[in-house]
């Protein structure tokens, strides 16, 4: 088997592989910068909670309308936004801190979601919603993925400056009247929107992986914010491509294959990244001793 057969042939031969590649690449473009901001704002857990919260919404859509993309997406969108807002409110109004409120919400959401799906669907349906069915993306799903990325990137560009200030020094943003909580809400909405569009491809449980893992990898390679975003995007795209190939050749479920590939890239980066990699540390250590 030559390199062509290994790396290109599957996409030439099969329509579903091409669709999967295009869809997930579109996802990766939006996911990577969002993940960088989630990481830097220490909101990984918030992202997790939202992605879990999408499940009962999607399940409700499934229960009412079957496997209909608009119904599933709308349900997911509403549930995701609701939990994002509710967790924030619970942390502000009660003694429970934000991490506890988030954990509470995503545990409830996950159980509720699984329960709702099992009321009507089979285990196969449940698996599809949890872990995605990337190889079954149709034109409508591709259109949804592309639209969401098309909305995400310009909006992120517009709120970029206040968002950076909000991450670095939120009190300063309030004192200069730069639009504090509005910025936060717009950013959260983008995260919800992207997780909803991604659930069909990667599954509600796996989608966060494509957001956080490339962002964490980028933190190891780049010093600046621009550099992180510029690193996270190709890392995410690379993970998508390699993950799809692995899933094709080894007959693995595609969502987990993509996330595990991102995980592999992260592990490798931990060893060799120039900024904070393990080898670099060992070398620096030797240098100091010498």
């Amino acid at each position, binding site marked *: 088997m030559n390199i062509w057969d290994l790396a290109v042939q599957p996409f030439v031969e099969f329509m579903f592989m091409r669709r999967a590649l295009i869809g997930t690449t579109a996802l990766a473009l939006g996911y990577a910068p969002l993940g960088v901001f989630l990481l*830097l*704002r*220490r909101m990984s857990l918030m992202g997790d909670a939202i992605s879990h919260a999408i499940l009962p919404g999607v399940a409700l859509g499934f229960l009412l309308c079957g496997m209909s993309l608009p119904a599933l997406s709308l349900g997911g969108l509403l549930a995701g936004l609701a939990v994002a807002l509710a967790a924030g409110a619970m942390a502000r109004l009660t003694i429970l801190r934000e991490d506890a409120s988030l954990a509470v919400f995503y545990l409830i959401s996950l159980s509720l979601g699984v329960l709702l799906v099992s009321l009507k669907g089979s285990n196969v349906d449940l698996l599809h919603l949890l872990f995605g069915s990337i190889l079954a993306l149709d034109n409508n799903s591709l259109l949804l993925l592309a639209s969401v990325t098309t909305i995400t990137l310009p909006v992120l560009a*517009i*709120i970029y*400056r*206040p968002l*950076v*200030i909000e*991450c*670095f*020094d*939120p*009190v*300063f943003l*309030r*004192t*200069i*009247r*730069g639009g504090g909580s509005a910025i936060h809400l717009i950013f959260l909405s983008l995260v919800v929107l992207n997780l909803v569009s991604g659930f069909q491809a990667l599954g509600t449980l796996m989608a966060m992986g494509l957001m956080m893992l490339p962002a964490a990898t980028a933190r190891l390679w*780049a*010093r*600046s*914010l621009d*550099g*992180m975003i510029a690193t996270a995007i190709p890392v995410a795209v690379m993970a998508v491509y390699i993950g799809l190939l692995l899933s094709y050749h080894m007959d693995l479920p595609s969502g987990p294959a993509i996330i595990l590939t991102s995980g592999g890239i992260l592990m490798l980066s931990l060893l060799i990244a120039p900024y904070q990699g393990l080898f670099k540390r060992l070398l620096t250590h030797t240098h100091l001793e010498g």
Partner: protein
Amino acid sequence: MTAIQLQDLTLGYERHPAIHHLTGVFEQGSLTAVVGPNGAGKSTLLKGLMGLLPPLAGQITWHVGVAKFAAYLPQQAELEIDFPITVEEVASLGLWQQIGWFRGINQLLRTKVAESLAKVGLSGFARREVNSLSGGQFQRLLFARLLLQEAQVILLDEPFTAIDQRTTTDLLNLITSLYQQGHTIIVVLHDLTQVKQYFPSTLLLARETIAWGPTTTVLTTANLARAQVIQEAWDEQAPICGRRAS
């Protein structure tokens, strides 16, 4: 001329007052130290002045002619210092009124940024990442950002906590020169020697005004003792009282 007027001001959290019945004025171009025992409500007062905490009762009036935006430096803990951002970029945030969401930083503004970094003694640090700075250098950087805001009113909350002596002296001199340029400056402090040396006016606070005026008449032994007593007698859970300011 009055810059900020307080009228029977009560501020607090969740309906429990932290300071109450404050009445008085900060004159335009004045340099005031806010001192008092721990928990006297000094930071709360600054948050109230900045509009970050709505008054439970009473009024804060900003007078015409005082710029709408005040510059405010809270206690350091609330910043995300691991954020990948350079010294130059942080200082540039002070240009917000000029650049807003979209406008670029032209050569003129770039020069201003460099000048303000020079004023705080951070020339040559422009490209450094903030997480590589020491505590003192970081505080200098926040002062550079503050200078670029060009605000008429400047509020500083314990700016010298855990800061080395040399930085403290430099920054105190910077505050003095801003005062001489006519800025209205209010600083929360706990070092009374600094207050006596650098600050013409003092507000001694212990949940209420103990004394407010020229530093020499405010920082008397009797006033300081009274502040301590009132602070220790404070009931955290007390409801808002009905007393009116005289």
